[in-house]
């Protein structure tokens, strides 16, 4: 057990994987200097420039090359800096990485972990603040992972490297400095959620940074005598239906909250599933469908706050006919 931050945790997992498996390589911009968030610190010194590969600013080719590496036997970890720049490599991710195994009838497969830091990045405006997990969940072939703690960033990165599928690995742009205990022996299963705060009245399903916001909300609601159960999905695809449905059966009320835009966000998938399969009352809380603004008062409109989560939970507890559609 060691105390380290979220960046260091991923670095540690990666280093272990690179030591035990020659096929693992890192590819991306600025990785030789440790990556802009320090998530590759020391790796090029340890493994050399042929395994920690500095690249030109060529996102299409970073991701496309990773597909070729994987088809020819390597296991690339792809650095995309932020999910927003991965939009320059979407053909390679969606048309190639996700589909290659299928199109070629299983002759090859694309074991890769593409790291696409996700979420609102303070003060960096619309082109650096997107949360796109719903997109990747929609694409057959892709696994989608969103760790929220140092331990998960350690364990889930290892699990992602081991799974053999193309994984869209969505670290949060602002969790890099988050400190926590990391037990290197602790493994995680892809597809397994964690109940991070048990509760009776309302289930709150969330992931990534909003896990922490929801925990703050749990403290707030507790003061009002409302007990919320916070579930961190950790894996977006495949998401942990069993844990969510079981909690929904207990509480009868579910709020899904995420930093992504609410409209057509992944919360919709969960809410839709709950509607199809349970009688629970559901509600979503995501960002408004506006680009993220630069200035603080504008940016704040796109933030999920503990207060907003708490208010949404309270609303779910109102008697049914008092429901006020949020238009």
């Amino acid at each position, binding site marked *: 057990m060691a105390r380290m931050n979220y960046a260091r945790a991923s670095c540690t997992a990666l280093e272990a994987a690179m030591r035990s498996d020659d096929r693992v390589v890192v590819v991306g911009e600025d990785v030789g200097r440790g990556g802009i968030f320090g998530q590759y610190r020391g790796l090029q010194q340890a493994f050399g420039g042929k395994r920690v590969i500095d690249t030109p600013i060529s996102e299409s080719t970073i991701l496309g090359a990773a597909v070729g590496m994987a088809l*020819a036997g390597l296991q690339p970890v792809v650095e995309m800096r932020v999910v927003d720049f991965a939009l320059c490599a979407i053909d390679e991710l969606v048309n190639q990485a996700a589909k290659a195994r299928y199109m070629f009838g299983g002759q090859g497969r694309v074991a890769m972990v593409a790291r696409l830091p996700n979420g609102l990045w303070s003060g960096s405006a619309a082109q650096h603040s997107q949360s796109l997990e719903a997109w990747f969940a929609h694409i057959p072939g892709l696994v989608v992972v969103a760790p929220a703690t140092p331990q998960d960033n350690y364990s889930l990165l290892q699990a992602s490297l081991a799974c053999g599928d193309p994984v869209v690995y969505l670290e949060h742009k602002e969790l890099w400095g988050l400190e926590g205990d990391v037990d290197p022996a602790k493994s995680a299963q892809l597809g397994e959620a964690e109940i991070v705060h048990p509760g009776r009245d309302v289930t709150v399903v969330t992931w990534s940074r909003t896990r922490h916001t929801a925990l703050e909300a749990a403290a707030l609601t507790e003061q009002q005598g409302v007990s919320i159960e916070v579930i961190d999905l950790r894996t977006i695809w495949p998401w942990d239906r069993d844990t969510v449905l079981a909690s929904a059966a207990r509480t009868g009320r579910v709020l899904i909250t995420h930093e992504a835009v609410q409209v057509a966000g992944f919360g919709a998938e969960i809410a839709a599933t709950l509607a199809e399969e349970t009688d629970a009352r559901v509600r979503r809380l995501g960002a408004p469908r506006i680009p993220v603004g630069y200035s603080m008062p504008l940016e704040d409109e796109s933030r999920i706050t503990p207060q907003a989560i708490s208010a949404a939970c309270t609303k779910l507890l109102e008697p049914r006919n008092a429901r006020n559609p949020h238009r």
Partner: protein
Amino acid sequence: MNKAVRDVELALALALYRTMARIRAFEDAAEEASKGGVAAFGASLSEAKVRGPLHLSTGQEAVAAGVCAHLKKSDLLTSTHRGHGHTIAKGAALDRMMCELFGRAPGYNGGKGGSMHIADFSVGMLGANGVVAAGIPIAVGAAHALRARGGSDVVACFFGDGAINRGPFLEGLNWAAVHALPILFVCEDNRWAATTASDATTAGAGALARAEAIGVPGAQVDGNDVFAVWEAAGRLLAEVRKGDGPRLLHAITYRVKGHVSVDAAAYRDAVKHDKELERDPLVIAAQRIATRDQLEAIGREAREEVAAALKIAHEAPWPEAKAAYTDVQDTGAGRWRG
């Protein structure tokens, strides 16, 4: 030149011719089997055996044959939407290819890919691709993998003249040069991109000039002369195998058919088109090989091989519906609708 050398040369010439003849026979048969098979270009979908867009490499056989004659099984290859010729020249079996085009279970991809995704990983053919230029970055990555495993294996990366106007051409060549990767880039310049003449949308002196400016030297060659292609590709590949870094071969050829098999290509000038047809690479090669009987035999054998492949494909079983759910992903397998 002594007799032994001449025999070797003849054997080589015949081998190149045979590859071309097999490609030609395959393309002719695929074309026939595709009639009415694409819901575009005004045609409607019918009961064609080969469905969907079928891009024929008829008339471009010399490029595939001349380049791939230098490749070993352990070398890798990435291709385009127009990939049958490369696949055949790299060593794939015609019957399993035809099965794939027919969408049958014994096809290389189990019917999942069809013509546009034809692949035979067992001979190092890493796949055709439905996205123009998408094979270039894939080749770059494959070359990293070859380097990691050591040895002198190379990647041959084919793309069309239209592809040199897409970003991955620049990105991939620059990257390959920066890392001195073992790749032979082959620009198969048939002078058309779908319904548009490439010169109308391409500025500057062309693929080779662009490559040179990005630090990738190479050569330009008559792509309908299989011996010229063979010679130039051999020279460049020797440099690539030595570790000198990537090279580009710019092979000028001609797209004999429409963009897809059901495209009549009425947008082309008929007179010019007929003139181009006179430069059939098989005819050009035949003129330089003395033994006419052998050529005829090779042509006949190729057609027989394709006929056998067709028969196999006609009779081959369809994939079962449940095969639609394999090869997707391991993590979360079974979660198809939620």
